[in-house]
């Protein structure tokens, strides 16, 4: 891989760190360079350390590294926080005139560039542009053509008028020439540009874009870090396609609104993070039993409870797999890259409608807030397919009537999939309920019907296992003795780690798994490996538990779920006969 360059801007929340970082990342991306960004932020609006880091290379970059070449430090803490990553020859740009920065000490082996950011910004038209002055200075250090910054500034400020754009361009140049004139260091960075066209987006945005592409028309949500960007993205865009976003009063309302829209026949979605998933769980069961297609996006953050809202974790796997009382089938999809956030969202809508059940689509904080460059063809809209599953209309509904003439939305079928009728379909009027029901959706406590409906709902999972491709993505050395398994946003870092390991003579085979349920059968892979390591961001190893569970030998069971409790003699007989048949290996 070509040399990568690592840059960061840091200060207090409220210092405009985010927009400064974004402008630089966009300038790089527009100059045909690959970019990968990461954010350090605290859960507060003003005050508290914040940083925006950009890694760039002409080759694809898909992770962060612990090295920082140029740092724009707005506060002394920015330097402290990043000392580990700064190295000999790292450049620190700061404003020695800023009160808090007057006594700042630049470590000896590093190069401090004291640039009067505020004064230069004021000359260019306003102190607020001091970060742009710093960007100009950084361009000089990195030998990055400043024209590329211009187009990013235009994108950012054009709605606010040409004057502001011009002032910002001037501010950037003031920073650039200040460094050129005042310092005669030879910096050995050379950020070349290419002719590539890249787009720069984060996981939440990719999910939002995937939703619109897939025909999602209704979104209801309640703000929560780090899922809010999904709602922000959809707001103002979904309307162009005839859709609507509602900011609900809470997550209970959000998921119920989405449920209502889905019953109306819309492709609907809600997105939240752990605490919101907890609140949605009661309705989740209703969605599953009423066989309503719905996409529920869980952008995981650190739990439990409010945990660490701005920190990464992949701790909600068990919650999504097992959350809710009783037993209901659900799918859990977990994209492992930002571009996959787009494609798995499309897939989530198709799976939800084909199998008429709720689909959890889960990303994690790292993926949600991280931006990465892609070639636009990565999101080829012509590849998007919409499969609405078994929807009946006036002409086909007759095949799904009970003897007494009522439509059967919960018809017992071999593949477990029943017909769906949208409101307005003649003769399709029917009831949906969280109560156990018969084929027409009417409440029942009939033991046989209970078993038939539970089996029917579960049969959809078996059908899906057969009909869909649930394979993991594989990379590394396919013949290696050691196997690494991962899920979620770890894939990018792992891909680079494999290269490093390879250089060190350590071969590994990697399986990155985007499907949690149903999931690929990894038993042959694990059995063939000498050692298996499961990589994930949680303490328990929730995915590791699943792998162990899948690979264990089978045990036989005795089950009953018809609503009547076990009777002693019946149970004894069941156990006896199961034992007699022997435990299947």
């Amino acid at each position, binding site marked *: 891989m070509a040399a990568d360059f690592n840059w960061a801007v840091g200060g207090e929340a409220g210092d405009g760190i985010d927009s400064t970082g974004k402008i630089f990342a966009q300038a790089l*991306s*527009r100059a045909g360079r690959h970019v990968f960004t990461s954010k350090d932020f605290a859960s507060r609006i003003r005050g508290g350390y914040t940083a925006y880091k950009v890694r760039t290379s002409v080759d694809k970059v898909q992770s962060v590294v612990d090295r920082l070449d140029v740092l724009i430090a707005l506060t002394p803490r920015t330097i402290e926080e990043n000392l580990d990553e700064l190295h000999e020859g790292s450049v620190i740009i700061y404003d020695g005139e800023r009160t808090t920065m007057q006594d700042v000490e630049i470590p000896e082996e590093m190069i401090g560039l004291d640039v009067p950011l505020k004064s230069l910004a004021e000359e260019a038209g306003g102190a607020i542009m001091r970060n742009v002055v710093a960007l100009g200075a950084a361009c000089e250090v990195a030998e990055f053509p400043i024209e590329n910054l211009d187009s990013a500034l235009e994108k950012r400020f054009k709605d606010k008028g040409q004057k502001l754009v011009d002032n910002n361009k001037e501010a950037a140049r003031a920073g650039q020439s200040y460094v050129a004139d005042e310092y005669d260091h030879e910096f050995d960075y050379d950020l070349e540009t290419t002719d590539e066209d*890249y*787009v720069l987006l984060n996981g939440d945005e990719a999910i939002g*874009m995937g939703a*619109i*592409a*897939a*025909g999602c*028309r*209704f979104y*209801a949500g309640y703000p929560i870090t780090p899922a809010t960007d999904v709602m922000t993205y959809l707001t103002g*865009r979904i*309307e*162009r*396609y*005839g*859709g*609507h976003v*509602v900011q*609900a*009063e*809470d997550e*209970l*309302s*959000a998921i*119920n*609104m*989405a*449920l*209502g*829209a*889905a*019953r*109306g*026949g*819309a492709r*609907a979605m809600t997105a939240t993070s752990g605490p919101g998933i907890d609140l949605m769980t*009661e*309705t989740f069961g*209703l969605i599953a039993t009423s066989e309503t297609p719905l996409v529920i996006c869980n952008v995981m953050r650190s739990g439990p409870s409010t945990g660490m809202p701005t920190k990464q974790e992949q701790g909600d796997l068990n919650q999504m797999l097992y959350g809710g009382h009783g037993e209901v089938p659900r799918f859990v999809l977990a994209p492992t890259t930002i571009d996959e956030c787009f494609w798995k969202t499309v897939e989530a809508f198709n799976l939800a409608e084909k199998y008429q059940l709720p689909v959890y689509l889960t990303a994690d904080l790292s993926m949600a807030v991280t931006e990465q460059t892609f070639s*636009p063809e990565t999101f080829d*809209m*012509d590849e998007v*397919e*919409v499969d*609405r599953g078994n929807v009946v209309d006036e002409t086909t509904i007759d095949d799904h009537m009970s003897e*007494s003439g*009522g439509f059967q939305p919960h018809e017992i079928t071999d593949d477990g999939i029943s017909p769906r009728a949208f*409101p*307005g379909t003649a003769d*399709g*009027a*029917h*009831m*949906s*309920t969280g*109560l156990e029901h018969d084929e027409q959706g*009417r*409440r029942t406590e009939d033991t046989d019907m209970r078993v038939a409906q539970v089996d029917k709902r579960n049969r959809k999972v078996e059908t899906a296992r057969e009909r869909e491709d649930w394979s993991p993505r594989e990379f590394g050395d396919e013949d290696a003795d050691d196997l690494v398994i991962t899920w979620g946003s770890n894939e990018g870092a792992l891909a680079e780690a494999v290269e490093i390991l390879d250089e060190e003579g350590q071969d590994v085979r990697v399986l990155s798994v985007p499907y949690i349920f149903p999931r690929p059968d990894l038993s042959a892979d694990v059995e063939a490996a000498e050692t298996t390591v499961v990589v994930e961001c949680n303490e328990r190893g929730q995915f590791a538990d699943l792998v162990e569970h899948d690979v264990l030998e089978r045990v036989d069971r005795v089950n009953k779920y018809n609503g009547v409790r076990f009777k002693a003699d019946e149970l004894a007989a069941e156990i006896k006969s199961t034992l007699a048949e022997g435990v299947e290996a």
Partner: protein
Amino acid sequence: MSSEIRFTDFKSDKQPTWCPGCGDFGTMNGMMKALAETGNDPDNTFVVAGIGCSGKIGTYMHSYALHGVHGRALPVGTGVKMARPDIEVMVAGGDGDGYSIGAGHFVHAVRRNVDMTYVVMDNRIYGLTKGQASPTSREDFETSTSPEGPKQPPVNPHALALASGATFIAQSFSSDALRHQEIIQEAIEHDGFGFVNVYSPCVTFNDVDTYDYFRDSLVDLKEEEHDPTSREDAKDVILDNEKEHQGVIYKDESSVPYHEQHGVDEDMSVIPDGAPESATDLVREFY
């Protein structure tokens, strides 16, 4: 086809399991008649029901319907209506469902002014869980969970609604069949959120707020000097603790429903096969 629709078309073939004499029978009949009378049919109607004896209503009616979880019927109705502006949406539930567990949603549904009808079957008690105090129970009403009465003033749903910016507030009595039907009809025809609190006596657990009590105490606003378009008049009626009223308490004739304010008027069940034509623009925005 609506001219041929009779109210019995809205009846399902399930026999209600309500106690004989329960007020909910009358409430439901009025709703079915009002739906038929306003030109709706079961295939273009969606009924969302809460949890409680009252919530069983969706089962006994015939239409597209959802029987949800406790307290969340209003958000479901909101979602249905936004996705399907062409569908008549009616939400029904009990006083516990609407003013206790679902109170938050009530306030927000009112202020959103989505064009649907909300019918609360108010029996001033929890029926289905066998007789506990409800948010509209009287302060001294003795129940299994309030042996000396709840010792808290009851919720005033109309005051909540008015304060939240309601555009239609009404009250009816399930056994005054004609008036009840008339009022529900007016709520359906209202452009916006039509809220009707219906006195729907529980003959099994509530021996205070009985048919006789309501019959004797009800004052019909039609016979009073009441101007339903006046918020002042509405306020006086709503804060009058001495009398029980029926009729339309408040009606904002200039009400602009949610879909008109927000331009939500498309049938969202219709989506193209594949990404929408201009979807590549979405990618271009990230340049």
